[in-house]
């Protein structure tokens, strides 16, 4: 209705999405929903069970943990030294890890370490990567030796000419970026740095 008043020059039929809301039935429906009595009725929440009258006759502790992210000043039980008195006070219920198995890990593969490579293998990796860096990339070496590309990077370094070439490739790619993309990349980097500061 308000839209009709604001732009009376437009024909009503040109704005078909306004039509259903002008129907009396829809108006009536909305009015019913926002009626004062119904709103109050919806907000009338039953109190939590822990606050109600319990069958225990004695006084008891109401445990109602706050719906908040845990504070960093509360040391996890595992990090408490063995002689700390708080270790005995913490129960399993307060740690909140009862349904640990239902949580999905964020990585598909399990980070099981096999430690199967011998020093001679590592020598081999280094030699391959240094002599023929074009054909033996980190991923190819990882596939051949059954380890992760991360491990290859930890073990050896690329040849200087390969590094130089990669740098030129990267520069060539970055030279084609416009202002928007470049700023977006820089912002992403800045946002990443805030992770460590917890901002």
């Amino acid at each position: 209705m308000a839209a009709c008043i604001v732009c009376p020059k437009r024909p009503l039929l040109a704005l078909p999405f306004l039509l259903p809301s002008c129907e009396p039935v829809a108006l009536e429906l909305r009015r019913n929903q926002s009626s004062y009595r119904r709103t109050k009725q919806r907000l009338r929440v039953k109190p939590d069970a822990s606050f109600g009258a319990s069958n225990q006759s004695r006084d008891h502790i109401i445990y109602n943990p706050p719906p908040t992210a845990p504070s960093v000043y509360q040391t996890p039980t595992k990090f408490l030294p063995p002689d700390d008195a708080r270790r005995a006070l913490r129960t399993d219920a307060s740690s909140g890890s009862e349904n640990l198995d239902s949580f999905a890990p964020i990585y598909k593969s399990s980070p099981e370490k096999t430690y199967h490579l011998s020093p001679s293998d590592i020598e081999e990796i280094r030699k391959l990567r240094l002599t023929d860096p074009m054909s033996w990339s980190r991923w190819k070496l990882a596939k051949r030796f059954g380890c992760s590309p991360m491990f290859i990077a930890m073990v050896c370094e690329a040849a200087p000419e390969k590094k130089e070439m990669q740098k030129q490739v990267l520069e060539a790619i970055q030279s084609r970026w416009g202002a928007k993309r470049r700023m977006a990349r820089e912002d992403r980097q800045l946002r990443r740095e805030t992770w460590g500061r917890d901002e």
Partner: protein
Amino acid sequence: MPVQGVKAVTTARNGVGAFILQCKRLDFHYCDWAGSSRGMVAFLKHKLPAIAKENPQIEIRVSPRPHRHPVIKGQYINGREKAICVRNLEPEQIVNKVSLLKEASGEKLKRIKKPVSSINESVRGIWSPFHGEYKGI
């Protein structure tokens, strides 16, 4: 280096630990001749020594300002100044004005809507929709 320190400065909480009175100086201006300063002159003669003794943390200056109405000016730690004209006031009324200047913080007056404002973290933390049990309605 695995972890680095971020440089910061502690924030003052006046009254937690020590309390610093924010009014640091009171200037009294009067006129010997004019009638509007009659109460002020009586105040300076009889009331001011006791007030000065009670509040040693305030520097007090008295100076004549001929042919002008009497004025009390308060200087505050935050650099602001508050002035109250006390023409034709009785000494008792001037005492009230002095205590008003003494107890002021020096900030501009503004309406405070929240009963409590604090820089401490709340005990139960900030509510998050992802924590706590789901309570059905």
